[in-house]
């Protein structure tokens, strides 16, 4: 077992839990969106840590491809969430 692998893996778990807590507890919609992004980053860190095989061996490219896909899906979900939040805000202003 590699030291770096478990260090980054554990940090991924912590970041994911921090993000989940923020997403559940924040009152502000925008900060909930930020928190969900932090949570995603924690998951990405777990996956990249799993892919790491030490300084000599090449890493496993499959989790890297998954994380790349994840980053792009996360940004499109963020954009849609922000557009929904903006619309919600506009509706509240009208009331």
């Amino acid at each position: 077992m590699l030291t770096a692998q478990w260090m980054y893996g554990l940090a991924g778990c912590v970041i994911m839990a921090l993000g989940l807590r923020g997403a559940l507890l924040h009152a502000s919609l925008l900060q909930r969106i930020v928190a969900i992004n932090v949570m995603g980053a924690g998951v990405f860190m777990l996956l990249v840590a799993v892919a790491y095989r030490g300084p000599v061996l090449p890493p496993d490219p499959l989790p890297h491809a998954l994380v790349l896909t994840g980053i792009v899906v996360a940004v499109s979900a963020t954009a849609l969430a922000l557009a929904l939040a903006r619309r919600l805000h506009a509706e509240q202003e009208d009331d």
Partner: protein
Amino acid sequence: MSPVSLPLFDALLLFSIVGLAWASLATTDERRSVILFIAFGLVLAVAWGRLLAPDVALAEAAIGAGLSGALLLGAVHRQPRPLSPGSTNDSRNQGATGMGVVLRWVVTLLCTALAGTLAWALLHAFSSVPHDMLPRAISGNLAASGVSNPVTAVLLNFRAYDTLLELAVLLTAVLGIFALGQANPGYQPAGPVFDSLVRWLVPVLILTSGYLLWVGAHAPGGAFQAGAILAAAGVVLRLAGRTRIGLPEGFMLRIVMAAGVGLFLLVGLTLLLLGRPFLGYPPAWAGSLILLIETAAMLSIAATLLLAFLGGRPESPAHAARTESANTTASNSGNEEQTRC
């Protein structure tokens, strides 16, 4: 780097990453939260580089920190007061402070338990012998994939299905954004310093995206990083107050938006007609087909991300100019949306 200093570097890096994530979520100031999140993304990109994932590092810096940051900062900027899920939020918080404290503790406890369980499962997985069946299958078939960068081979060949559906997700998201309304109002024209910076920056960004697209076949890079950089060129133009930001209009815009999914499907179905499996490229053609699909995907990704930054259906430049003049004539005190950059 010597073996002694590497764990120290890891510890410092992880300390700052977890610290930034914590700080970004601990504050109730939205602007501070977003800026700390951008810093978090940038330091995260360093971590991906450290874990030998340069493709992910590039995508994180360009998309995770860059474009997400621009999206979130734009949203903070347009909302003078915090967005709350319900308009009665304040009274709810005041009415149930006791309940609120208990709830916070319960949620914190559950999240800690989740992190603990995950960590336990992870350590269990790490202590067993790693499965190297998939990495070996990938490196064994790399020669037939048409590219030599294993991440591009996985994305565009071995698991091309995933990438096709990912492009469909992007298209769906932007259609959802279109359905929610018009684009955000533009920005005021930039001052001379920013304007001359834009003149230099935009061509460099376009050139970089072309380079990343081409180099993705054999080195870190590819359609996603290239598309994000190309979108960044449009974002910079938009921030500089330009009405023309490189997006085509009307029907052409729809073609560009759907080009990635469309060409991907066309290649897959043509191969099906030729008696090959769906998206099972013939090895001799794989390299060219991947470049073709990636070029279309890059244009679609760039258009999608730029439309996401606009936050709605774009107006035609003539219409935008008209509303712009209308906005400046009817500039009331609350109209903070047109800002100098």
